[in-house]
């Protein structure tokens, strides 16, 4: 298996702002790859570098082993699903989907037929004659997908593709995207700031922070074995235990992460914490706790009974769930 996208020491600076700083990256063919990070972390700039909308200040970018930093976007076999879909308002849905074919001068009948097939693939058969403005957000999203896939790109780039959808639709689309990617075998690179989306969909995740990659790995790696304090905090909002507390509890050195769902409420024998806030989430309850002067998040099931804000509570966890962060 050869890499679909390779970054070798790639940088992109905007004046003095280092949007992307000396990034090395290899995305495998057929992979569903997520770029995760807060806004301004450089993940979208990386996507735009692959698409060709930005040119690197330094370094080398390869797609399927071809250096492409001097190739304009319209000659790269890479397509993009834009955050707000960027459907052309003056064209019908079918014309939007067939746009790439029209540009390649495919004859009209054939390209409209292919567009209809692509629309059926995203379960929008028969919608070709409508205008984009007549569709719902989820439908537009799928039109954008069909439009990007009709040219059979080597890599499909998705920029926050589900960001504008409501929760229920988003979960549906996550499943659909995964199935589509598996069925087509095309490399998907998608950018998101939503860690649960990245964790549930991606084969591998790159976590971005301040223009650099903080960690690359499988969702399990990223979630359970964060390599930096930033990753631990950003992915799943882990509790980070200060070094003093870690030494006191386990005798090990360094800081450690502890997932909120690893914390249990016990009747006695645990650590005493003060409840500072609570919110009922339906299937569970989130508690904000004060433990030895440090703030803690706990996600506990509803069986622990009732608790008042300001009241003390006993909590505990398995030592194995405490993940020591190296190098800290």
């Amino acid at each position, binding site marked *: 298996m050869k890499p679909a996208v390779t970054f070798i020491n790639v940088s992109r600076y905007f004046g003095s702002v280092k949007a992307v700083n000396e990034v090395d990256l290899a995305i495998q063919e057929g992979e569903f790859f997520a770029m995760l990070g807060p806004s301004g972390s450089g993940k979208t700039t990386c996507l735009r570098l692959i*698409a*060709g*909308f930005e040119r690197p200040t330094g370094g080398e970018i390869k797609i399927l082993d071809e250096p492409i930093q001097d190739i*304009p*976007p*319209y*000659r790269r076999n*890479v*397509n*993009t699903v*834009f*955050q*707000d879909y*960027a459907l*052309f*308002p*003056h064209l019908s849905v079918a014309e939007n989907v067939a*746009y*790439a074919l*029209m*540009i*390649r001068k495919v004859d009209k009948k054939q390209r409209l037929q292919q567009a209809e097939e692509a629309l059926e693939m995203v379960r929008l058969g028969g919608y070709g004659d409508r205008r984009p403005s007549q569709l719902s957000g989820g439908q537009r999203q799928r039109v954008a997908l069909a*439009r*990007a896939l009709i*040219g059979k790109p080597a890599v499909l780039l998705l920029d926050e593709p589900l960001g504008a959808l409501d929760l229920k639709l988003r979960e549906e689309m996550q499943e659909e995207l995964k199935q589509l990617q598996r069925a087509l075998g095309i490399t998907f690179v998608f950018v998101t700031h939503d860690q649960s989306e990245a964790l549930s969909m991606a084969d591998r995740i790159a976590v971005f922070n301040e223009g650099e990659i903080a960690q690359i790995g499988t969702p399990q790696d990223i979630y359970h074995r964060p390599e930096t304090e930033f990753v631990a905090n950003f992915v799943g909002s882990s509790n980070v235990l200060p070094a003093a507390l870690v030494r006191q509890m386990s005798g090990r050195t360094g800081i450690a992460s502890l997932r909120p769902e690893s914390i249990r409420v016990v009747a006695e024998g645990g650590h005493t914490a003060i409840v500072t806030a609570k919110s009922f989430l339906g299937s569970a309850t989130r508690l904000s706790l004060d433990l030895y002067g440090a703030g803690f998040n706990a996600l506990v099931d509803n069986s622990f009974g009732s608790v008042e804000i300001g009241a003390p509570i006993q909590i505990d966890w398995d030592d194995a769930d405490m993940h020591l962060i190296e190098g800290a």
Partner: protein
Amino acid sequence: MNNSANDRRGAVISAGFGLAGQISDVFWRKPVILLLLMLTPPLLWLGVVYIGSLLALLAQSFFSIDEFSGLINYHLTLKTYGELLNPANLDIILRTVLMAAIVTLASVIVAFPVAFYAARYARGRWKALFYLGVMLPLWSSYLVKIYAWKLILAKEGILNWFFELTHLKWLLDAYLAIPLIGGNSLSVSYTGTFLVFLYVWLPFMVLPMQAALERVPANFLEASSDLGATPWQTFRNVLLPLALPGVIAGSIFTFSLTLGDYIIPQIIGSSRLFIGQAVYSHQGTAGNIPLAAAFTVVPVVIMGFYLWMAKRKGAFDAL
């Protein structure tokens, strides 16, 4: 007492706005009254003064002038419109329409890069400079601009001097030798008239175009490029269709302003009349108001036809 009913009321409804306040309250409850009050004067103005005079004009064009006495004959007739088809009058109409069309086309071509740069790239100070640069010609007197152009284009003017300085005078002479668009000097040729029209009306094309281009999201262009379109294909298939309402708006300005102008061709050009000048001379001492009115109806009809065509071609679909 704090708890008295009156104090409680004051806490909910603030009082003391006086008569003006009460009037505002009435407007708030019945917005239609405010709308009527605001719209009646301009509607009256438009209705009586504008539409009224337009109708009077239209009516005049159906009268005719008595060949014998030169007096106006107040019987409805199409004779005056028939006169428009005289070779000399037809010349004037064709000349004007052709000039207006060429000026419009040229302003689209010249304005597009300017408007595109301003809409896409200019920021902050450069944007202010752009607006200043485009608007500046509009602030100085129209006549001053035209006289300045006369000095530029004259036989012993700036442009000629420049051509002589660069030893390119033969080029200018060769151009001026071309029949129809050439002439004794640029300032007495159709080319001169065209250049001045283009200069004077250009801002009216740049501004609506820039507004239209600014409304085209940048990622439409990226999406098009991403789907394999070269910059030219993107321009043709995405940018132009989406900017078309702005282009049409601008062309309505440049086209109708050129159709109606009677000062530029009088100062720069070969003295061959344009519609505006024909209207001016017929309604003056000649007293041929019917023919002048018939001439003024021509641009109205042409503009109506133009808008109808533009609508049919879908120029307003993206609005």
